[in-house]
């Protein structure tokens, strides 16, 4: 047997053995019991899709939360999750989608509130198994806000005239200043969203609906008040939340890991919001072009009520 042949055989055996080790490790990670608590940080406004720059996508989106929770669910060694929430709230449907994910998550979830977890931030928290806030955390704001922008002045300033043709009586609701009838329609939508918010809080926090109605004025509460009102379970920070999660999951001496948000793909870097292409375009065509595009988007977008 030649030297080359011996080397070839040794390498082949080494590769096969290594593959067995690597595949076994993956299987073990997925199925063998462990004692890990995952900490997931959710920061920023709640949005349907991500905003922000190329290297720091901002905001809490259903897609981001789904990816992080699926990662935690797949890993058999993770027994519970601590969600660090720092959010002023945001889009209603996105909040509801995230809330459903938290409610349906198969492992324990403890929310640890930062400086602020208000409105939508509180809405998603209400689905967790436990909420922990600092004494000085600002939370609550159980309410819905709807703002209609009248952009006529801006269009006039830009020298843009708008022609609107509609099929359907109220299709141009947001084009002209609100009439009394349309204001009523939007009030009903806002009230319904508010009712959904209150029912969710009552269900999630196991509070009587009548009690939640009294709290749900949109008022802000500081952590200590929120505890008295039953909106949070405990006062404390990250470590208190980790201890609580470990206790809920029956884990002793937990190993804490941080689950990081997904890395933006190469396409996001070039073509995503705030991507390189966007920066180059702004440089070449000037800020006015970008502003005009923003105005076009504004005109093509409905105002939406928000948590």
């Amino acid at each position: 047997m030649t030297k080359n042949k011996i080397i070839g055989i040794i390498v082949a055996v080494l590769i096969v053995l290594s593959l067995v080790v690597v595949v076994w490790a993956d299987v073990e990670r997925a199925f063998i019991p462990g004692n890990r608590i995952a900490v997931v940080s959710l920061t920023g406004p709640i949005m349907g899709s991500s905003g922000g720059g190329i290297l720091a996508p901002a905001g809490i989106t259903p897609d981001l939360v789904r990816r992080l929770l699926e990662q935690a669910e797949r890993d058999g060694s993770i027994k519970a999750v601590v969600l660090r929430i720092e959010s002023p709230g945001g889009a209603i449907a996105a909040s509801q989608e995230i809330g459903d994910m938290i409610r349906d998550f198969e492992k324990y979830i403890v929310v640890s509130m930062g400086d602020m977890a208000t409105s939508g931030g509180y809405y998603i928290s209400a689905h967790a198994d436990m909420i922990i806030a600092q004494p000085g955390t600002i939370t609550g704001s159980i309410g819905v806000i709807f703002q209609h922008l009248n952009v006529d002045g801006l269009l006039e300033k830009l020298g843009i005239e708008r022609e609107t043709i509609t099929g359907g009586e109220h299709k141009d609701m947001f084009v002209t200043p609100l009439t009394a009838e349309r204001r009523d329609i939007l009030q009903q939508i806002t009230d319904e969203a508010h009712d959904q918010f209150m029912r969710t809080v009552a269900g999630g926090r196991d509070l009587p609906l009548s009690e939640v109605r009294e709290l749900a004025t949109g008022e802000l509460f500081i952590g200590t008040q929120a505890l008295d009102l039953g909106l949070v379970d405990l006062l404390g920070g990250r470590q208190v939340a980790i201890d609580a999660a470990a206790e809920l999951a029956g884990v002793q001496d937990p190993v804490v890991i941080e689950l990081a948000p997904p890395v933006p793909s190469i396409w996001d870097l070039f073509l995503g919001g705030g991507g390189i292409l966007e920066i180059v375009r702004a440089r070449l065509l000037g800020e006015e072009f970008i502003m005009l595009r923003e105005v076009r988007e504004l005109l093509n977008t409905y105002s939406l009520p928000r948590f």
Partner: protein
Amino acid sequence: MGKGIIETLGGVLARPISTIRSICEQRPIGWAIIVVLVVSVVSTVAWIDPGMLEELGLPDISMPAIVALFSIINMVTLLVLTAVYHLAASVLGGRGTYGGLFCGSAFAGLPGIFAAPLAAIGLLPIVGGLLSGLGTFGIGLWALVLGILAIRENYLISTGRAILIYLFAPVVLFVVVFLVMFLMFFLVN
């Protein structure tokens, strides 16, 4: 192949110059394709798990599909890069065949199979990540040297010209593709 595949594989690792020269001359296309596929499968299984793909923002697809996808990508990349190298080498006065370079480059990628032991080393506590990272850097350099050798031996050109072709031809290709894409997106948006 005269020497048999195991001996050739050992030869690429132990006596790369003479072995790659012989591969470029004999052009064992079938074995070259098998080597590319095996290296793709081994390195994909070693480094990629579905969770990693999820984190990278790729859709949640099954492992066999991931392996097939990466194998196809690697094969297409090799075919295209070989064409670029062939064109650049011809311009710089090299005399060799596309098939010879394809086979030489395929076998030059052989160090990629060491992704498996490196991934296994990466599982070691504390030093695993560092050792694995250093090892990955090492096999990257090794494959780079073998790739340059494949160009030099196939076209019988100087090492300097081979380095020039290996390093700059893909950059030129990337710039051209990027400019075309940039213009397309720029015009569409």
